[in-house]
């Protein structure tokens, strides 16, 4: 455990520490503290002594008018160190007795900046994401999404808006696009909304990918809003995508599916334990078709969700473990969100997942100024943006690596192993295995190519 140790050494030493023109080190003031590993990189800090402002005041009370004295006979000095976790209580009580200069030992807790939440301003823009994803390096490796089918399962794409926001053209594969029965819009010509944001974000890393517009969230169910659907529509969409995949030559299959949606509430589901339940049941038809499609060679990515403990979406209704159903499937990548500073956004759902405990898998970037699908000042946000950012990267990889050469399961492992670890050391339920790391991915692909040659 990291601690701060307060000492009152000799007057000359206190005066030296308090004088910014004098260089002092931790070992000058606190060498030889038993059981303490001193942090020698931490420059000692002089701390003033609070004393009563009025004569006769209680010298121990902080609840009165005070003045702060830096006089050498009043001030003290702080150094930083570490005490073994299993010795902390003994050492803390014995230190003042065993070393006469020690006057107190205090916890030195980790402090963090406030996490980005929904409604906050964008953190960086999509060119920052382009830089962080090393899109130029990907392009130099021939990884730009050319010839790769990238399905955006969402509210439909408005290609004109995405083209304008990107400043370059895009390809919508209308023939292989799909809509639920009753939806009459034309692929690539839907209203600007969530699906256009996802399309934009997917094209950051895979500018040459061919988009399949799957407007699964536009189904016209009774009693629903315009922008939601039913899981049965997603099943029909996946059956269509299975046909798309099966029509590709087995040796060059490349189909990436980005899903920035989920079920917010157990209210719409049978309870866990019921054989017809979705959230916790790998035998639900949608979870079966997801597994079947991944097994056949598709890369499937799901947003982890926006139910992070620090600032969850108001729609989140699961009392715990909000990464549910296919969003927690073992054969998909569940994508958490970090901002362009690399810090987890506060709304990104934490694991464990309901179908598979180790969810989310990895993090990708979100909450940046990008598509402007929701207005000029509004960021592309939510794990909704992180998921297509990651899907674009997977599509870029698929340019040179078909699912026959690098099966989806091995690609998932590669992305997890190369991820830039954040949070605690190793896997954790906030960041998963870490943030997608393109330099590591390129190096791993080169090693794999060399081995195969």
């Amino acid at each position, binding site marked *: 455990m990291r601690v701060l140790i307060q000492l009152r050494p000799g007057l000359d030493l206190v005066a030296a520490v308090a004088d910014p023109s004098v260089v002092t080190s931790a070992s000058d003031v606190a060498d030889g503290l038993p059981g303490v590993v001193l942090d020698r990189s931490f420059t000692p800090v002089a701390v003033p002594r609070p004393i009563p402002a009025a004569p006769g005041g209680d010298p121990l009370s902080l609840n009165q008018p005070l003045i702060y004295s830096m006089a050498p006979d009043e001030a003290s000095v702080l150094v930083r160190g570490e005490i073994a976790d299993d010795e902390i209580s003994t050492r803390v009580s014995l230190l003042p007795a065993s070393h006469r200069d020690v006057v107190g030992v205090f916890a030195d807790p980790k402090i963090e900046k406030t996490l980005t*939440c*929904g*409604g906050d301003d964008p953190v960086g823009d999509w060119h920052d994401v382009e830089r962080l994803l090393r899109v130029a390096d990907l392009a130099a490796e021939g990884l730009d999404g050319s010839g790769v089918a990238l399905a955006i399962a*969402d*509210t439909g794409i408005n290609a004109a808006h995405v083209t304008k926001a990107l400043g370059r053209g895009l390809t919508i594969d209308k023939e292989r696009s799909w809509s639920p*029965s*009753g939806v009459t819009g034309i692929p690539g010509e839907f209203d600007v909304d*969530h699906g256009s944001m996802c399309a934009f974000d997917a094209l950051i890393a895979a500018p040459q990918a061919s988009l399949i517009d799957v407007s*699964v*969230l536009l189904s016209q*169910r*009774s*009693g629903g809003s315009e*922008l*939601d*659907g*039913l*899981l*049965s*529509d*997603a*099943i*029909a969409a996946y*059956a269509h995508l*299975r046909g798309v995949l099966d029509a590709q030559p087995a040796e060059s299959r490349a189909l990436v599916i980005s899903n*920035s*949606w*989920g*079920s*917010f*509430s157990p209210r*719409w*589901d*049978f309870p866990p334990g*019921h*054989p*017809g*339940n*979705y959230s916790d049941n790998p*035998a*639900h*038809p949608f979870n*079966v078709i997801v597994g*079947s499609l991944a097994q056949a060679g598709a890369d499937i990515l799901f*947003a982890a969700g*926006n139910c992070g403990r620090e*600032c*969850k*979406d*108001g*729609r989140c209704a699961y009392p715990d473990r909000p990464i549910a159903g296919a969003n927690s499937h073992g054969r998909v990548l569940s994508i958490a969100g970090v901002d362009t500073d690399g810090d987890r956004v506060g*709304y990104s759902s934490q694991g464990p997942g309901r179908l598979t405990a180790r969810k989310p898998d990895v993090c990708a970037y979100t909450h940046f100024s990008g598509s402007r699908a*929701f207005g000029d000042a*509004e960021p592309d*946000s*939510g*794990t*909704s*943006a992180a*998921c297509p950012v990651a899907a674009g990267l997977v599509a870029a990889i698929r340019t040179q690596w078909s699912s026959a050469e690098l099966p989806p399961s091995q690609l998932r492992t590669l992305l997890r192993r190369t991820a830039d670890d954040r949070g605690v050391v190793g896997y954790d339920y906030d960041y998963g295995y870490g943030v997608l790391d393109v330099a590591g991915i390129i190096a791993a692909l080169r090693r794999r190519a060399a081995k195969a040659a």
Partner: protein
Amino acid sequence: MTSVLITVRLPRDATLESAMRKLELAEDEVDGSYGLVPIDPDEGLYALRVSEETGRRIHAAAGDSTHYPGPYSNPRIEPYGPPS
């Protein structure tokens, strides 16, 4: 919940009509616009969308069969963003 899903095992390239025959379903018990959706072609597993009442009837008719035909939930799904 206005509709549920049921599943049925049939040979590859099965039709909605063949599924309805096997499950003894009338036309008004099945969502015809949804049709017969292949879940896992290699396993011959298909899904249909039906009313809750029909789902319960299919479950009761299955008896002790090792294949659980449903009903399966058909929950509402929504976009994950922007977070509100």
